[in-house]
């Protein structure tokens, strides 16, 4: 219990420091941007007709006439109160946009996470158990190819095969045409999710399979595997009784750390499939110079990645008996 409290406190402190750093970084980056916030706000059509007085009024209203430090402190103050600002693209508060968008993305990422975990570790175990054979070579080639394939191209490939040629999956979006996201059935939802999730899972499969394979080969060459074999255990038995539990933990850790890649990949995937998630919102925010939304998403992604890393850290401490016992003794 003592350990859990210490762990939580230190992690929270880390998170605070990280967010402060991200705040400074994003503020500096956005303030050096040559894109004029007022121009971006009023849009191209009204930019020409706007008088200088109107422009000055907006600048004053937004505090753009203040020096950089003052602006930063005021912005930070709002941030600490939980006010991320208004999204210009969606005419909603940034927090609300992120909340609804992330809900959609969460389905996608969770499914992709599951797919890549199951496929990646299965392929890795298969390759590791048959190391050196044609099966192993084939899986390794497959994994190497997958890990260097562009995500958006795989998305296009799947679309061509399943949606255009075979027509068994929808070509875009998260819902059938004319149906709102809140009254979509579970089956419809999964039907629209399957291709994006498959695409997104590709990012993780390659590295997970190769990593699991390495680990299993190492185990199969260990002394205890040799001893088990001397006692008459088959390769399948060694993999099942010694391999799996040793492979599972690094694989799980890799999956949690991979959440960062998953988030990045979801941006590309959602663009291809027109899936209304957080990644799609990121692109929209950048294209339409929606600074509050972009900054909000940057913050959110930092927290998301941090959560993934913390889970990876925690999974080791909670699951691995060697570290768990070591932790209690300390």
């Amino acid at each position, binding site marked *: 219990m003592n350990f859990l409290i210490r762990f939580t406190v230190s992690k929270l402190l880390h998170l605070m420091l990280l967010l402060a750093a991200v705040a400074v970084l994003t503020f500096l980056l956005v303030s050096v941007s040559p894109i004029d916030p007022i121009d971006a706000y009023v849009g191209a059509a009204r930019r020409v007709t706007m008088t200088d007085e109107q422009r000055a009024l907006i600048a004053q209203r937004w505090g753009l006439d203040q020096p950089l430090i003052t602006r930063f402190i005021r912005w930070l103050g709002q941030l600490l109160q939980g006010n991320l600002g208004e999204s210009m693209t969606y005419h909603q508060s940034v927090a609300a946009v992120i909340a609804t968008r992330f809900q959609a993305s969460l389905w996608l990422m969770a499914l992709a996470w599951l797919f890549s975990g199951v496929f990646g570790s299965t392929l890795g175990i298969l390759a590791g158990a048959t190391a050196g054979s044609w099966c192993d070579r084939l899986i390794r080639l497959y994994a190497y190819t997958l890990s*260097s394939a562009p995500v958006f*191209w795989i998305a296009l490939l799947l679309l061509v095969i399943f949606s255009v040629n075979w027509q068994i999956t929808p070509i875009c979006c998260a819902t059938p045409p004319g149906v709102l996201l809140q009254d979509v059935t579970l089956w419809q939802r999964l039907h629209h999710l399957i291709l994006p999730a498959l695409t997104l899972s590709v990012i993780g499969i390659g590295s997970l399979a190769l990593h699991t394979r390495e680990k299993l080969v190492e185990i199969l060459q260990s002394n205890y595997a040799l001893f088990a074999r001397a006692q008459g255990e088959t390769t399948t038995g060694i993999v099942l009784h010694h391999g799996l539990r040793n492979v599972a933990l690094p694989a799980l850790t890799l999956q949690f750390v991979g959440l960062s890649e998953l988030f990045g990949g979801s941006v590309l995937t959602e663009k291809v499939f027109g899936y209304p998630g957080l990644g799609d919102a990121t692109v929209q925010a950048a294209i339409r110079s929606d600074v509050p939304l972009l900054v909000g998403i940057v913050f959110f*992604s930092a927290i998301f990645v941090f959560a993934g890393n913390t889970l990876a850290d925690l999974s080791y401490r909670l699951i691995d008996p060697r570290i768990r016992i070591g932790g209690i003794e300390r």
Partner: protein
Amino acid sequence: MKLSMPAIANPRSRLQGFSLNNRRSRTLLLIALCLVVLGVLLLGTYLIGQAGLDIALSSRNQPPSFAHPFGTDWLGRDMFSRTLHGLSLSLWIGLLTASVSAVIALAIGTLSATLGGKVDAAITWLIDVALSLPHLVLIILVAFAAGGGVRGLLLAIIITHWMSLARLLRAEVLQLKSSDYVQLSSKLGRSPLWIARHHLLPHLLPQFLVGLILLFPHAILHEAGLTFLGLGLPPEIPAIGIILSESMRYLSAGYWWLAVLPGVVLLMAVQAFDILGQSVRALLDPKTSQG
């Protein structure tokens, strides 16, 4: 190592006399092959010129054939030439950005390790912060901050790719600095510059070279991705990302070759860089270079 091994029992020692059966020769062959493929992709546009890029409305949307191996697009342009041009552009951008990024990594990594103290702490912290954001989100943020377009793309790729390599080189320098022979060398009165030239450089250069080559595929894929999203190169520059994002509009019409085949070539280029990097690493690492 070699002396302790019985010479007769090891069949591999007999094979070492042959040149094409050992791993070293095969690695060299692989490197040569990758270089040829990449050379063709990089310089191919100079050989074929502007042929095939003309609009020919009489031969629109043709599937792949002998005359047009990659088919033609909605304006009758030959997709094969378009792909080669686009890819060559993307590869050059990748080479440029990754090289600059690697040089930044080398400078920051070595500075951080040699200066130590507060500078080191600040740089390590900066790397940690940068790596705590999803890579693509950071790239989008920087591209946006730089104002988008070509400038935004170049800056975004350059600024976001040096961290891992810098961290690696920093660790390497730190390890070298504390090694016995460097300590001894400095006790013997060698100047820091002499040590850097004679002890650090021979160790860092291979690492840097491999890191540089392995940065290329990342830079190329991120360039293509950012352009694909519409945040990188403008549509009038026909990079590979633009070609793929344009082809998306024609997917539902069944023109699969527009998207699939250019992607295959992009994948091949990325693979070639990856294999090149791994092979060079295997060749330069004394542990794996022989045998």
